[in-house]
């Protein structure tokens, strides 16, 4: 690696700060994601009011599946933004000159993660208020949300970089990302249902382990492959 690690991290941090500032200026991705999540929560609450009053295993699974559907599609709306914007405003070339590929990747990854965590907070609050989802093991619920979001970001950041170079960007992003996201989604939906039911930490540990190993595998693969995408 031509860059020493501290320099790499400071470059990544500047990419992250730059993205955050430009996002706060336009709030394009944030608005799209939050409005999407809000409309899903309201639609679910209007359409299925019985969901909040029942508490059995099937309802927990339904609630957690609906929550993750809202999160997934909101994320697929917003997470490609950081790379697509670089192409649209033609700043990608400048970024290529200014920072090493790994730093760009790490910066964007961090930005996507922060974006998604904000989305998590808002969406789960909306679900708790509107759909009257009752969370019995709050610690496990929060940890699973964070782990699931980590998986979503590590898997989709490199895909966002790929589709930024293609046509039909937003439609393609969902098509390309969905099959790769099936494994963590299945696990996190089951785990979240457990957390809603108030299962002890020991029961959720297997889910957390699988999610983390998925995140690590996709993160390492992204680090290895990102250079090829960024220079293509």
């Amino acid at each position, binding site marked *: 690696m031509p860059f020493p690690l501290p320099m790499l991290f400071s470059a990544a941090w500047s990419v992250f700060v730059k993205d955050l500032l430009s996002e706060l200026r336009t709030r394009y991705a944030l608005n799209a994601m939050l409005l999407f999540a809000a409309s899903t929560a309201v639609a679910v609450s209007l359409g299925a009011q019985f969901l909040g009053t029942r508490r059995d295993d099937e309802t927990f699974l339904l609630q957690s599946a609906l929550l993750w559907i809202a999160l997934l599609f909101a994320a697929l709306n917003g997470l490609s933004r950081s790379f697509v914007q670089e192409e649209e405003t033609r700043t990608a070339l400048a970024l290529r000159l200014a920072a090493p590929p790994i730093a760009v990747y790490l910066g964007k990854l961090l930005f996507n993660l922060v974006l998604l965590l904000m989305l998590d907070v808002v969406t789960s609050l909306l679900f708790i208020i509107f759909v009257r989802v009752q969370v019995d093991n709050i610690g496990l619920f929060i940890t699973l949300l964070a782990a699931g979001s980590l998986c979503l970001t590590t898997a989709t950041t490199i895909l966002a970089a790929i589709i930024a170079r293609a046509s039909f960007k937003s439609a393609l992003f969902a098509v390309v990302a969905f099959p*790769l996201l099936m494994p963590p989604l299945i696990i996190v939906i089951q785990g979240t249902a457990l957390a809603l039911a108030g299962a002890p930490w020991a029961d959720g540990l297997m889910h957390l382990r699988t999610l983390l190993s998925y995140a690590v595998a996709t993160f390492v693969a992204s680090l290895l492959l990102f250079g090829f995408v960024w220079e293509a």
Partner: protein
Amino acid sequence: MVRRISQMAKLLIGVWMAGVIFAMFLIIPQYEGLGDAGRIIIMHVPTAWVSVLAFAVSAFYSGMYLWRRRPSDDDRAVAAAECGFLFTVLATVTGAIFSQVVWGIYWNWDPRQTSIFVLLLIYAAFFALRAAIDPMERRRRLGAVYSLFAFVTVPFLVFIAPRLADSTLHPNCAFLPGSQCDGIVLSEGRIGLLGDRKIRLLALNQQGDIITAAVEVSEPGLTSSAILEPTFSLAEGRSLDEPHFPAVRFRLALEQVDLTTGNVRLNMHAPGTGTIDNPRTFFTFMASNLGFTMLFVWMLQMRSTLLGVSWKLEEREGALI
């Protein structure tokens, strides 16, 4: 010389596959209880194997392309993905037909159905992605990255899909020698799952050497239930009467009885259990696997050559304009 050998190889594959089809319909014995539907296994399993093999080959050549930047490697990766897609569709369709005939349900989201569905989606996404990128060099590179990245995530399905449903319609124990279904151990009054059926051991009755278990079997979705009574012979140490599950051709067997603890082992027996032990079926099955693999290699070679030639032609036309 090379031409001669490849001609011979092509003919050999044709004859080989014809032989496999002949054996599949005329030589191997009928699967007990499955009737002629069982013969589809000779096609179904090899196509499924090739679809996974093609996915790995595609990822391998994608990696080679990123490493050496030779367009021929990318042609091979694309050709492997195209063949793989074809075989995946074939495996899915033959599996669904068999499943409908034998178990009365086309689709069940059992672990292998989930994984093959994801595989189909990944292939489709790969083609969609390549179609959406115009510059050739970039298309190749991004396609290769996607193929490799997808290859990293698929193994997770192998661990995760079995947790999706406790059910599997794929009777590992029936068709592969050496593997076994363990069944479940229950004591009186306890419930458990066998495949996608909930079962409950109601009572154990002993009459001399014969143990009869009363087992309540509930349909998936708990819509209806039935009481089956498998029996076990203490003297011979084996199960005697194995009643059929309602509406499917699996049988419920009482495999072990421990009178001191009151535990019994119940298991599902698939029709055709042990047929692979039959040498005719086993050799036809293996020959079919080999034949489909050779067919895949030949298709891969053909298609990648064709792709290479068509790129060359396009390049030349572009240069002339």
